[in-house]
């Protein structure tokens, strides 16, 4: 019976816009839609280069719309969390008046029966506009743009950056080798997987011996000692990104386990000041018990034994 794990990954991007897209986004805050002149065509949304020749375009912007004509459409009956509306809507390619190309956006038409190619639509503006494509909440059937009573007005400064925050929920099978590591961990044990051919011991994500191309599984489990020698380390100065809980510089170390000769990579440390972390330090595993009685590896702490003075230590990465 395969174990599947559910996880949600956030993708919070912050992007610079450049002079062309930035101009378009800034204009949105002023409830204007602009295109860029490309010969006798007007590209909407504006691009930095001629799509046919890749020549850089002059920043010759043209106001278009606000109304336009639907050139193609599809109906989204069950929107995803990333779609701009949370009720059924149409995606449409809209040729704004004065434009030579079409803009993809949502049409809030209420019902699929209201949609047809050639439909005239106009933007429904958000009250608070930040310079983002969704400053237009959606287009709506008709000729007249819709503006809320509490309109906050245009941005005070040109818009140069935009946020894009998506999240995706994944369902992923847990490889058998991961389960071997996880089960042992919960019992306060460290294990590795030993290749039956070359006898190398793996402690990471390997599901096969990458040297011998032999699949590994639970039958290859070997017990690892809980003492070892620090081979290399890094001190990480945290930057504040979503999910980052560290605030002070912290260490990650590689530990070469005794006897078995397997390296545990990127391990945390316990009661071990950053200034004292260096190759050759003898360390031991520190475990904590969680609310369910399961063991968790808190990290590695010095044993107090003398350093190992072996030049080959520093050459051990994995």
């Amino acid at each position, binding site marked *: 019976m395969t174990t599947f794990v559910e996880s949600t990954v956030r993708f919070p991007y912050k992007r610079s816009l450049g002079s062309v897209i930035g101009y378009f986004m800034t204009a949105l805050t002023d409830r204007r839609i602009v295109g860029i002149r490309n010969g006798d065509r007007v590209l909407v949304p504006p691009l930095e280069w001629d*799509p046919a020749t890749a020549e850089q375009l002059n920043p010759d912007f043209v106001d278009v719309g606000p109304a336009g004509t639907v050139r193609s459409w*599809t109906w989204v009956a069950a929107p995803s969390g990333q779609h701009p509306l949370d009720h059924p809507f149409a995606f449409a390619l809209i040729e704004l008046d004065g434009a030579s190309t079409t803009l993809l956006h949502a049409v809030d038409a209420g019902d699929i029966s209201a949609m047809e190619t050639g439909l005239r639509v106009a933007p429904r503006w958000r009250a608070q506009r930040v310079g983002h494509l969704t400053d237009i909440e959606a287009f709506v059937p008709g000729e007249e743009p819709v503006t809320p009573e509490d309109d906050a007005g245009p941005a005070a400064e040109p818009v140069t950056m935009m946020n894009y925050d998506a999240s995706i929920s994944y369902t992923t099978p847990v490889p058998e080798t991961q389960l071997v590591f996880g089960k042992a961990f919960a019992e306060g044990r460290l294990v590795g997987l030993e290749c039956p051919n070359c006898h190398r011991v793996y402690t990471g994500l*390997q599901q096969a011996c990458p*040297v011998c191309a032999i699949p590994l599984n639970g039958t290859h489990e070997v017990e690892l000692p809980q003492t070892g020698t620090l081979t290399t380390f890094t001190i990480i100065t945290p930057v504040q990104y979503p999910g980052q809980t560290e605030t002070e510089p912290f260490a990650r170390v590689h530990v070469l386990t005794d006897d078995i000769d397997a390296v545990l990579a990127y391990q945390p440390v316990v009661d071990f000041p950053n200034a004292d972390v260096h190759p050759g330090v003898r360390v031991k595993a520190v475990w904590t018990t969680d609310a369910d009685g399961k063991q968790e590896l808190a990290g590695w702490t010095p044993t107090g034994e003398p350093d190992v003075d072996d030049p080959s230590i520093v050459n051990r990465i994995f």
Partner: protein
Amino acid sequence: MEPVAIVGWALTPMVRRTDKSEARLLFDVVTGATEDAGITRADVDFSCAGSCDYVAGQAFSFVQNIDAVGAWPPKRDSHVEMDGAWALYEAWVRLQLGDLDVAIAMGSGRSSTADPATIYPMEMDPYYLAPLGADAVSLAALQARVLLDAGLVTERDMAGVAARTRADAVGNPYAQVSGEYDVDALLKEDYVRAPLRKHDLSPITDGAAAVIIARGDKARELSDNPVWITGFAHSAEPHQPGVRDLRASTSTARAAKAAGADGHFDVAELQAAFTHEEPLLTAALGLGPDVAVNPSGGPLAANPVMATGLVRVIEAARQIRDRGKQRTLAHATSGPCLQQNLVCVLEGTK
């Protein structure tokens, strides 16, 4: 141009959801393809894989996948965040340098990981498309309607493509969706994204594929019936679908011309992941009614994203090595509304 031939390949079973990791799927096809070519992993000089971190849900997922190829003896490796067909293209280019003889190209995707409507916007233009959650099925539906409005295709034609490919897929052990279907019954189904119904879409598929290619004499040494790559090219159009004429696929026609694809083939395997794309591609490639299109069932029978294009190459090669055909075409695509297209011409040993 160095003569390069396909000398072996392997596919995983194509299923709705596998319990295997991507690395393990690749392990299996690397083993299968090397056995098919009569070589070992040690004989492979260069490897290139196509996969997608957003599909895997894991940063640098391709690094783990290298374990499938084997790390010893050391070999040159590369990765494309594209379908494995582009990995094959890179491997083919690498062999053109003339100092390596054998390469493996792979593609892998576990599309079951998440809702495709949330994954694929991540690969779109981050300013104008991704913020709307512009998903691949919606964009395909917009192109389908353009074709319908222009009178280039009908919903009945599209259902006909679905019925024909599903019937063809009955004989394909790697098909996920197959069987006999009535066009009138298919047309009564609800829309998923109007004007696309479920049968107009490819299934969600987990799977992987690998292809071994070899240069000149090495190919002749390894295989009694090497499948020669006699033309290979790809071309891209602007990413924004709104600046393109969606009624045609100009980059497919351009790639076909560069690859020497003149329309005369026994079989064409096309990465038409939506029914309306088949007539569009057939027209761009100048394929006449005598060319058998997607006799394997094509992507509508199994769609392991990031391997689907490479599977087309395998199915086109199979027609030559195992079915006695002389000249076949494989097509792969990437990007919204057929933005980028790759054409590979295959010929048997005369």
